[in-house]
């Protein structure tokens, strides 16, 4: 406990607090720009921390990480564009809310959820790191395969309307993910003779193309801004925050569930914030009393997505700090920083350099707290800009930022062309009812499922029936059952309804004559 107190004192200096505040602010704006992800934010700001002490450097990066994951929610809500992959699920209900003139409510809900999520993640890390870390290593290739399939069952619930179109979208996404060098085996696939395609289609490039470009085209076609003019606040900003605070804390089940999901997925190496928020969103919808309202502006969807992805920030450091396993891509950079300062993940980190480590962990809690003022003020500012700017200025500016963001991702013009092409195709797909979300889902999870399946099969080369390895231990059996259950619970109600309706129609027919 002494160590914790000492750590607390070491960060509670004017310099420390300013570092955190600056980190959160910088992260927030980088995260809000489509194309600039949390990983990029950390990589870009890394050199600035070289001149700092190890603790101050880690504090700054932790704060940037926290801010960036949260910042993605702004563009998700205001212009239907996930700023980082972690906020894909935020667009589902955030943007419909904004279109209904409830943008600030959505932002307030996202902010409160992020703050709570961030703090809960820190609490998990501080109190439960060793037992949770053990969980990280039980997820092997077979388990990852089932986790990916579990995520893919989301397609059914994301495709409001036609299941077939949802599945089609998912398949398109999985096919897109196979372009480039295969993750296992190293063959180049579908590169059509272009060396540049060896890099494949980067998720973020597809994300920007499929989400932003169709939105921009439809804005231009309809001559409208991102948000309706009526996007004024009912009863002012203060009351929106209070209302959302009351909504969240009066029914905390959604928040608690999302945080637990966030923590569990954060620990699994290879599944980042994007999977986290999608799964949390799906579960929020499944357990809701009114699942039909999801996708049409239900604030619970925003809360589930944003709370779970901010739990991930500190949560994914559980395996990182204890075992040296990065739980999410940005953690790889944090690991680099630790090593650079001669800090080796493991027990030493919590004993010998415990003050430093605990200081770092606590500073992430402060960073989460700072999201509240920074986010609410920044949110008002960005909200006002998006609503007040005439669409003929707004539209080209967004287009410009997305192109720059796409280029900056890998310094690649090819990526920009891929983004524009996918966007144009995405616009027409949207017109025929195939949404961006299932496509992106297919891209994210297709790769994870492929890796898990192939690795499992390779390891089972000596077994008489190789595929039995997929259900060889209790955890994979449980996950497999969850997949079946998830498919059943999403398909069954619709099927029952249809067969019930058919039976009723039959009765009506019989009664008619």
């Amino acid at each position, binding site marked *: 406990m002494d160590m914790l107190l000492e750590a607390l004192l070491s960060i509670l200096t004017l310099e420390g607090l300013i570092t955190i505040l600056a980190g959160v602010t910088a992260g927030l704006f980088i995260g809000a720009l489509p194309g600039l992800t949390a990983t990029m934010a*950390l990589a870009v700001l890394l050199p600035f921390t070289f001149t700092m002490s190890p603790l101050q450097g880690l504090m700054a990066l932790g704060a940037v990480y926290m801010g960036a994951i949260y910042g993605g929610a702004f563009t998700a809500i205001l212009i239907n564009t996930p700023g980082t992959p972690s906020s894909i699920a935020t667009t589902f209900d955030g943007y419909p809310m904004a279109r209904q003139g409830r943008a600030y409510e959505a932002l307030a809900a996202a902010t409160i959820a992020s703050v709570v999520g961030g703090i809960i993640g820190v609490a998990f890390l501080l109190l439960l790191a060793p037992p949770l870390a053990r969980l990280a290593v039980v997820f*092997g290739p077979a388990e990852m395969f089932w986790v990916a399939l579990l995520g893919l069952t989301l397609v059914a619930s994301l495709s409001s309307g036609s299941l077939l179109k949802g599945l089609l979208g998912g398949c398109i996404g999985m096919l897109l993910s196979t372009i480039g060098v295969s993750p296992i085996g*190293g063959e180049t696939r579908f590169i059509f003779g272009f060396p540049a395609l*060896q890099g494949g289609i980067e998720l973020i490039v597809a994300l920007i193309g499929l989400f932003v470009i169709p939105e921009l085209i439809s804005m231009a076609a309809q001559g409208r801004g991102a948000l309706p003019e009526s996007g004024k606040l009912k009863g002012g900003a203060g009351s929106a925050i209070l209302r959302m605070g009351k909504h969240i804390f009066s029914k905390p089940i959604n928040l608690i569930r999302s945080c637990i999901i966030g923590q569990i997925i954060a620990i699994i190496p290879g599944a980042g914030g994007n999977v986290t928020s999608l799964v949390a969103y799906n579960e929020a919808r499944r357990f809701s009393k009114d699942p039909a309202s999801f996708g049409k502006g239900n604030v619970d969807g925003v809360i589930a997505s944003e709370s779970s992805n901010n739990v991930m920030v500190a949560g994914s450091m559980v395996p990182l700090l204890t*075992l040296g396993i990065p739980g999410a891509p940005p953690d790889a950079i944090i690991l680099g920083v630790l090593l650079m300062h*001669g800090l080796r993940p493991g027990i030493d980190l919590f004993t010998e350099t415990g003050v430093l480590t605990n200081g770092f962990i606590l500073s992430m809690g402060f960073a989460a707290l700072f999201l509240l003022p920074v986010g609410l003020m920044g949110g008002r500012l960005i909200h006002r800009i998006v609503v007040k700017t005439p669409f003929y200025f707004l539209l080209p500016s967004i287009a410009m930022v997305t192109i720059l963001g796409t280029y900056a991702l890998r310094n*690649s013009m090819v990526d920009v062309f891929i983004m524009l092409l996918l966007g144009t195709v995405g616009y027409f797909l949207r017109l025929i009812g195939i949404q961006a979300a299932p496509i992106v889902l297919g891209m994210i999870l297709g790769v994870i499922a492929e890796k898990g399946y192939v690795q499992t099969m390779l390891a089972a080369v000596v077994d008489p029936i190789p595929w039995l390895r997929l259900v060889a231990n209790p955890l994979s059996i449980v996950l497999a059952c969850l997949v079946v259950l998830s498919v059943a619970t999403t398909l069954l109600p619709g099927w029952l309804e249809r067969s019930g309706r058919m039976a009723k129609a039959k009765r009506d027919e019989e009664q008619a004559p």
Partner: protein
Amino acid sequence: MKFATTRWVGSLSLLAALGIPGMALAEYPEQPITYTIPFDPGGESDVTARFQEPHLEEILGVDVNVKHRPGGGGAVGWSEFQSSAEPTGYEMIGVNIPHIIAQPIMRENAGYETDGWKIVTFFHTTPNALIVPKDSPFKTLDDLVQYAKENPQAVTLGGSGTFSANHLGALRLEREAGIDVTYIPFTGTGPLPAAVQGGHVSGIFNYSMLGVQMQDNARVLAVASEERVPALPDVPTFKELGYDIVGGAYRGVAVPKDTPDEIVNKLEEAFAKTNQRIAEKQEPLGFVMTDITDEEVDKVMQQLKSAYQPILEEAKANQ
């Protein structure tokens, strides 16, 4: 005055001959240098470049901008560099062995050639290390080899990538020891610690750095270097144990083929000095610092090509 004129005329004719627009050699460098890393941020190549950056800047007196161009296991960055970089000394790119040997052999369209540039230096190597879980029944390399002999294909060895340093290391172990193991590629070093600690594989073939990092949770059976790795003094080399396996990843930096020798020499010197300064920080992590330049580069390339080519071609024929 006369000297200045001849120098001016000399460099002008040289410039004309090489077709470089407006660049005075004598003052190199006088503008920022772009240092491309063809991998994602956070990996070994990136971390090293971050270590080097401030020292290179101080020694060369100009800004050195590290830029990432990831994709295709490095191939995207390398193919772009070979097709478009100018031989001015202001563009350089990190190169890794065995990637640049294996990719052009294994792929139809790698988009670059193994020798399509001038390699300035290999500044360090990271030897392969064979790591098993702490509770593994394999206490020594001999245990593992013995078991693999009795149970072909039953030993699963994870590693980073296909036909990578790790994969080639595993293939060489198979040849040297006369065993048949199952190599399971993972994407990058990231997921490997979990694979070992969770017992999802019997062991992993990865770099010495991971061996250092995982001291608490795993056991390193052997390292594939000439001499013991300073950061792992208790771990024997494969050579000591009777297997002639020396290999791993070599990291270096290359410039376009026609870059003038003066510039190459200046960069060699800068990297050598930088290496001395960062050795203190990198060695404890498990890196083995080297200063391989000029003819030695060719020698190393030749040696590794002849070691890897037969293995690669055999693998390609089996595909």
